């Protein structure tokens, strides 16, 4: 009973005060703003302005033709609104034949991008967690294994692309091993798998590393308790390791997802430009910019940007990726949660109390 009294007391007190927006603010917001202003200015210069300019570029279209008498190009730039965004999904810009069938080039690149993201991330997560589980074990030569697993991650992507090109050559190691002549470097389903294999090889260690960091924060007594209770290794993995390592794993997977969505150098270096089976959105934007169609190139980039924003947002919302992991922010959020819970509890206790009496 005394508890309930305390709560009502608290709430009545709070009603008197003006609710503060930031519970932990110490009134130094202005100072903070001044201190981070230089950084904000630089970010605005090198990120803000280019982003805004690309958006503007994407709503203008340059059309023109060759003067039939002089051969000189005469072109005009007009406001196009969202036309270039809409055109990307129609056949007006031409279609291409790829393993997905005959599609508008943008759609084909979009499907490739999503396909690579889903497949690569799935393999990388499983392999990365396995690597982390191995690396976290105490055994002789642990340091060596950790270093060896990280080597692929340390090699620049374009270098590993050229390395894998040798592996996937018609007379390369890959074909030697499977004893067949597959044209990995042509333009086919096999090229897609060549990219996936090389990408998984390169970036599974990244997920492994971040997961390892998460694994090392799990206290050993949890496992000891589980062992005493007779849990199997499998149960310990599913019920203890995975839930406790989830925050770290989700962040790793989020970073990899955003990275894979804008994949460029691996397919470009390994398979080549303008190969529709592996053309991603950033490759398509690059290709259009090369052809001096800056408007559509900007439109494609903006759409890729939006796609990444949406996926990052979904990640944070659905999987609760905790990117900042700042103790202060955490404390703030927890305080808010407690407050909410207290209010709820109070309400229910009042109503239940009323009904009881």
């Amino acid at each position: 009973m005394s508890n309930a009294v305390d709560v009502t007391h608290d709430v009545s007190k709070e009603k008197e005060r003006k609710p503060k927006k930031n519970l932990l603010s110490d009134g130094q917001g202005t100072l903070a703003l001044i201190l981070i202003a230089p950084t904000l200015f630089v970010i605005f210069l090198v990120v803000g302005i280019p982003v805004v300019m690309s958006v503007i570029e994407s709503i203008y279209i340059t059309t023109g033709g060759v003067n039939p008498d002089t051969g000189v190009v005469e072109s005009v730039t007009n406001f196009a609104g969202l036309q270039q965004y809409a055109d990307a999904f129609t056949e007006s810009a031409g279609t291409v034949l790829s393993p997905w069938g005959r599609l508008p080039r943008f759609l084909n690149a979009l499907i490739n991008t999503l396909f690579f993201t889903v497949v690569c991330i799935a393999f990388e997560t499983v392999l990365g967690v396995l690597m982390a589980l191995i690396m976290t074990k105490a055994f002789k030569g642990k340091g060596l294994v950790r270093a060896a697993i990280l080597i692929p991650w340390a090699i620049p992507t374009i270098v590993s692309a050229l390395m894998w090109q040798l592996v996937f050559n018609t007379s390369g190691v890959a074909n030697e091993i499977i004893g067949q002549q597959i044209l990995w470097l042509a333009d086919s389903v096999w090229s897609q798998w060549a990219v996936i294999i090389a990408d998984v090889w390169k970036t599974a260690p990244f997920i492994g590393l971040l997961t390892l960091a998460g694994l090392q924060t799990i206290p050993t007594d949890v496992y000891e308790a589980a062992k005493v209770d007779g849990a199997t290794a499998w149960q310990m993995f599913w019920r203890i390791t995975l839930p406790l390592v989830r925050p770290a794993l989700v962040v790793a997977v989020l970073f990899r997802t955003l990275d894979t969505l804008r994949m460029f150098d691996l397919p470009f270096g390994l398979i080549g430009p303008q190969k529709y089976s592996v053309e991603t959105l950033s490759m398509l934007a690059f290709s259009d910019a090369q052809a001096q169609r800056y408007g559509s190139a900007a439109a494609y980039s903006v759409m890729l940007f939006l796609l990444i924003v949406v996926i990052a947002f979904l990640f944070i919302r659905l999987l609760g990726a905790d990117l900042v992991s700042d103790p202060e922010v955490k404390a703030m959020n927890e305080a808010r949660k407690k407050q909410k819970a207290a209010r709820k509890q109070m309400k229910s206790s009042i109503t239940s109390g009323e009904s009881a009496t």
Partner: protein
Amino acid sequence: MTVRKNARRIAVTGVALLAVLATAACGGSDSGSSDGADWTQTGPITYVQGKDTSGYVQPAIDEWNKLYPDQKVTFAELSDSADEQRAAMIENATTNGAKGYDVLSVDVVWTAEFAGNQYIQELPKDQFPTDGYLKPAVDSGTYFDKLYAFPATSDGAMMYYRTDLLEQAGIAEPPKTWDEVVAACDAVKKLPGQASINCWGGQFQKYEGLTCNIAEFINSAGGTFITADGKPDVNSDAAMSGVNQMVDWFDDGTIPKAAQTWQEEESRNAFQSGNLVFLRNWPYVYTLANKDDGSSEVNGKFAVAQLPGKDGVGVSTLGGHNMGVTTTAKNLGTAKEFIKWWNSAENQKAHTIVSSQAPTIEGLYSDEELVKQFPYMPVLRASLANAEPRPKAVEYGDVTLAIQDATYNAIQGNSTPKAVFDRLQTDLEGLLK
């Protein structure tokens, strides 16, 4: 929090406004043509070309600078990737000459794009006489009947063939037609230990080389890839017989399946390791395949001939680089004299000796010293004499990609050759109008 948000919002709106104004300003300032060009003004200039792997360029420029110290030429060396060279040159043009480029080494396929967009200016024919230069090379620097780029180096394809194997098989003359090529291969395959040798090699990876190879098949079958007035003609019966020849050769193994991933170097390696009877490639292979340091298994065992065709010798695709002058160049007098000096018979000969790049002066092909060093010269000259240029299109990148799409789909068997080349014809009609 809110202060920051508001500040950001204001800033973004401000920049957006500024940017709109800037784009509007850009739209209206298209420069006009440069009719009253003054071809006498002298002064320092910058010469731009891709990576000079031969080491010829800088010493030659030093020589010029010694001769004309008041008209200094600076060498701006770009990447060895053609795409990056083109991008740098376009960047210079679209920023009103911010990089200060004056004389450009222009790939033959960029002529139309650079001339059409007025990145390079017309070279008055009376001041740039082209007599004595190879006609196809001069033609490759010409756009709408005006000379835009002066022929500097040329390139044509030749057929490399294994003299030792043909001799053993009892064939005295190199084949002139596709049927003779197949017959020669059949005879070679019957030789002991040669049952698995591949017959024909070329560049069939999806890149610019594929455009060159398919154009050769079509033109050598009596088709005309691009007609004299610049219209595509890629799905006529004659053209299709060339396309079908290429596809058939892939189907029956005359061209190994692996060739779908070959560029110049992969095909050269296949030939050098003795896996090919015939190879279509550029002249640079000759010296490399003749090396006796063990890198080539065929040194001294091959010779060159003109490409074969359907009913007689075939038609090569023309390559090479020409020299153009940017529209932002000021010291046109120096640019003119430099280009003429660079391409004098004496200097072209010196260039060829060092870099083994083919000259554009016709007379040099019978120069004794050159023929002695490069025995393929007479063959190359014959090849260049009837070489065909690739399409002259301002949007050449789109044109060549459409051609590569069609050809690659045909040789990969994704669709019937007729269907993809009908589509290509439609696409090219749109692009080349």
